[in-house]
């Protein structure tokens, strides 16, 4: 019985480490790593072959494998963690770009299936289907691995490692970097447009998760002393996913709870079932139960037993949840204090220049989708310190043009210049860091971040918003983060939404979400702000209040270009105005000039 308890402790710690790592990838970074088990597997193999002697000399050469360096502890474990991290690198191309999450996931799933087949069939690597056995337990020359004391000590080491992993991951996720990870999870295209480097963020978490998984494999193989392809079928990943979903994705404690309930719990409960006539029945039913568990939990309790916890940044106790109301509520949003807000100091704006030189321009910008040209030869100029309007009928190519200026979409041909530099091939997150910030036509808030977190996440150049910055801990970035939170709160107060600081952004009304998006874009400290229909679906009175503030921003030195449908808004606020129709520039000038232009009037009446 005592041996059994020691075994349970080791298994529990190994499963917990694996689930913590998977949860960091899936629950925080939004990476659905359907091949997760191969990272644990490679760790186990590497730890095994590093600790064993050469295959020809050890154990009479009955098993074949590579390396066999006979390294002392802890080198095999370190090697295992490194191998797990390295294995992540070939998959970076799958998760790095904007491949649909489910496409990348099946790519990883299929990779896991195929790697298992390769290892099974290619004997010289890891002894094929039979697997590697007689893996030496660490320190077996000094202690007796069969002894009870050794087994408990091993369990103790495993638990200590698990606790270290827990605190390491918590340090990473509860930092500004963790906030950026969750922002990417909630909406990657928007995070990209705000300057988050998706490839770096995803790679860092794949590598970190891979290292932890590799280490967990090493701990396991040092205890059970054997490892074969049967132990890491692709479906084992699904078990770990079930664990994270049941425990609570995005919650470290949930991951540990899930690990104890699902992989460990299922294994152990079936040990106590009476023997059945059909020995295959129990494992089959176990799989059915895992499948049902996933479906039922995702339906009835999608956030798991321990849901992701809300981060209260405002320091105020008690959260006001926005009450869902009709669109009329937008009219009641009180922007009363906004006129006292000093945009220039809050947003680090450069002093307003008196010359309206061209800051951003496009030359013969063209975009085709599947042979259909949506934008053709668009050459426009955005002048510094002005509020330029872009108007045109549906399908005129306004949003496509804006997306190309911001880098969300690559042009088919043409050139984009920003402050005298050619930025045509600059990725969107770099443009954002260079000062070009865009908003989106469709709702784009980070749903499971609070309103305040949405705002703070956009602030550029945060010390804690890099992998290594986060690793240095709160002492390194805490002071700066406090200042950033205060800046965001000041902004929130100006826009009259302070009471919702700690509410989830996903629960706000349409108009409130628009304001959150505008505030967030402003805190990204744009030099050029590109707004895609910021007033769509907003109550007219609120739209005018927003327009007044845009004028103030422009007067404080910001450059804004705004796509809009409403002529009234253009009349009131925009100068100059560019008219697009059927993908081409039809005319530009002041609204008064355009109203005199017959072609423009016709395009609007006909279009």
């Amino acid at each position, binding site marked *: 019985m005592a041996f059994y308890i020691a075994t349970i402790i080791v298994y529990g710690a190994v499963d917990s480490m694996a689930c913590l790592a998977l949860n960091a990838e899936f629950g925080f970074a939004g990476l659905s790593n359907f091949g997760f088990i191969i990272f644990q597997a490679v760790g186990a193999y590497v730890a095994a072959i590093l600790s064993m002697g050469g295959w020809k000399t050890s154990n009479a050469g009955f098993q074949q494998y590579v390396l066999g360096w006979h390294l002392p502890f802890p080198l095999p474990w370190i090697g295992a963690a490194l191998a797990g991290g390295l294995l992540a690198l070939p998959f970076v191309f799958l998760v790095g770009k904007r491949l649909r999450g489910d496409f990348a996931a*099946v790519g990883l799933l299929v990779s896991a299936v195929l790697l298992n087949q390769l290892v099974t069939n290619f004997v010289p690597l890891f002894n094929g289907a039979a697997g590697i056995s007689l893996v030496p337990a660490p320190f077996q020359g000094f202690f007796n691995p069969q002894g009870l004391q050794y087994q408990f000590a091993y369990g103790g080491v495993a638990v200590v490692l698990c606790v270290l992993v827990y605190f390491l991951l918590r340090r990473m996720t509860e930092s500004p970097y963790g906030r950026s990870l969750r922002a990417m999870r909630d909406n990657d295209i928007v995070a990209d447009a705000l300057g988050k480097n998706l490839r770096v963020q995803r790679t860092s978490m794949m590598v970190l998760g891979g290292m932890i998984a590799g280490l967990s494999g090493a701990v396991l193989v040092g205890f059970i002393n054997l490892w074969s392809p049967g132990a890491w079928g692709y479906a084992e990943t699904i078990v770990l996913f079930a664990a994270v979903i049941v425990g609570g994705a995005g919650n470290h404690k949930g991951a540990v709870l899930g690990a104890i309930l699902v992989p460990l719990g299922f294994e152990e409960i079936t040990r106590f079932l009476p023997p059945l006539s*059909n020995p295959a029945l129990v494992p089959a039913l176990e799989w059915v139960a895992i499948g049902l568990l996933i479906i039922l939990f995702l339906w009835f309790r999608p956030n798991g037993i321990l849901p992701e916890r809300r981060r209260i940044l405002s320091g105020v106790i008690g959260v006001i949840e926005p009450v869902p109301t009709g669109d009329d509520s937008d009219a009641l949003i009180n922007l009363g204090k906004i006129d006292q807000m000093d945009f220039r100091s809050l947003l680090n704006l450069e002093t307003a220049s008196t010359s309206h030189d061209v800051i951003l321009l496009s030359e013969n910008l063209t975009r085709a989708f599947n042979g259909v040209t949506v934008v053709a030869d668009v050459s426009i100029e955005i002048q510094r310190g002005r509020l330029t309007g872009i108007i045109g009928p549906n399908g005129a190519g306004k949003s496509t043009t804006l997306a190309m200026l911001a880098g969300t979409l690559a042009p088919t041909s043409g050139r984009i210049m920003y402050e005298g530099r050619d930025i045509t091939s600059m990725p969107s997150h770099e443009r954002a860091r260079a000062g070009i910030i865009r908003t989106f036509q469709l709702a784009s808030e980070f749903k499971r971040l609070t309103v305040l977190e949405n705002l703070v996440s956009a602030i550029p150049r945060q010390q804690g918003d890099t992998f290594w910055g986060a690793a240095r801990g709160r002492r390194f970035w805490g002071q700066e983060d406090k200042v950033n939170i205060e800046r965001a709160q000041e902004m929130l107060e100006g826009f009259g939404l302070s009471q919702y600081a700690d509410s989830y952004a996903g629960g706000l009304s349409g108009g409130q979400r628009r304001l959150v998006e505008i505030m967030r874009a402003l805190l990204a400290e744009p030099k050029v702000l590109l707004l895609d229909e910021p007033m769509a679906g907003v109550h007219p009175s609120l739209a005018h209040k927003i327009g007044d503030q845009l004028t103030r921003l422009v007067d404080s030195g910001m450059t804004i270009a705004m796509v809009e449908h409403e002529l009234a808004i253009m009349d009131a606020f925009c100068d100059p105005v560019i008219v697009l129709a059927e993908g081409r520039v039809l005319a530009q000038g002041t609204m008064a000039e355009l109203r005199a232009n017959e072609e423009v009037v016709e395009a609007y009446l006909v279009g």
Partner: protein
Amino acid sequence: MSVFLSSLGFGLITAAVLAIATVGFTLQFAVTNVLNLAYGSVMINSAFVTYYLNIHAHLNAWVALIGGVVTGAIVSYLINRFIFTPFQRRQLPPITIVIVALGVDLCGTFGLQAIVGGSYFSYKQSFGREWHFLGMYLSTLQLTIIAIAVVVLGLIHWLLKYTKLGKAMRATSANMNLARNSGVRTQWVISTTWIISGGLCGLAGTVFAMDTGVFVATSAQLYIVLLLAAMFLGGPGEPYGAMLGALTIGVATEVSAAFINPEYKEVIAFLVLLGMLTFRPYGIFGKEKTL
């Protein structure tokens, strides 16, 4: 040369089965945007219904096949209606639905295994005589399967090109909201598509089992690798691309098996899949979605 031609024969039969399966799989993706990873489990369950009709109801295997087709249609319809659709109504990201599909797959495959056990099964059916032509060796059974595939894919072509339902399916696939606003009964189109594609799934499962000769409850578990490779090669949601993708993958796996090593024959499918996902995730002729 003779090795090449005989492996080409195997390739054609693999491709025939794969084409039926992939067209069903890709149609489901086209109208509902779901990567139905439970597809393989429906295939093998349908094959087992055919088995029971064949062995226990003493029906001719080709007649029993109809039972497999009907099973595939009904089960697929039910999975979409009572599992995928409710989840999609909650506006969840596609990945959640894929995880749900994996759950369904586990229930389907291992539920079957719990019932039938781990033993081997085969239909009571003759392979017929062996035909030798153009350097290829194919049995009557295999030629029949190829003929079935040609007829069924021809019917799908007719359905998509010349019927009102086919046009509605293509419209729903291109833009569901626009189709609905233009008067297409999208919910009905989706249900019908799942019934038709489910029928293809059941048919594919049965002919897959006939072709392999001996099968177990978990035989189709890894078939998803070939399905995904064929679909992504032709472009997800593109039925004609799926046919071409299946032909390429089917022939490529069998020919590479003959020349390299049969144990690694899926490797080529895997490389194709990863290559497509990396460089052309919308297929060789696939369409990029607009913003």
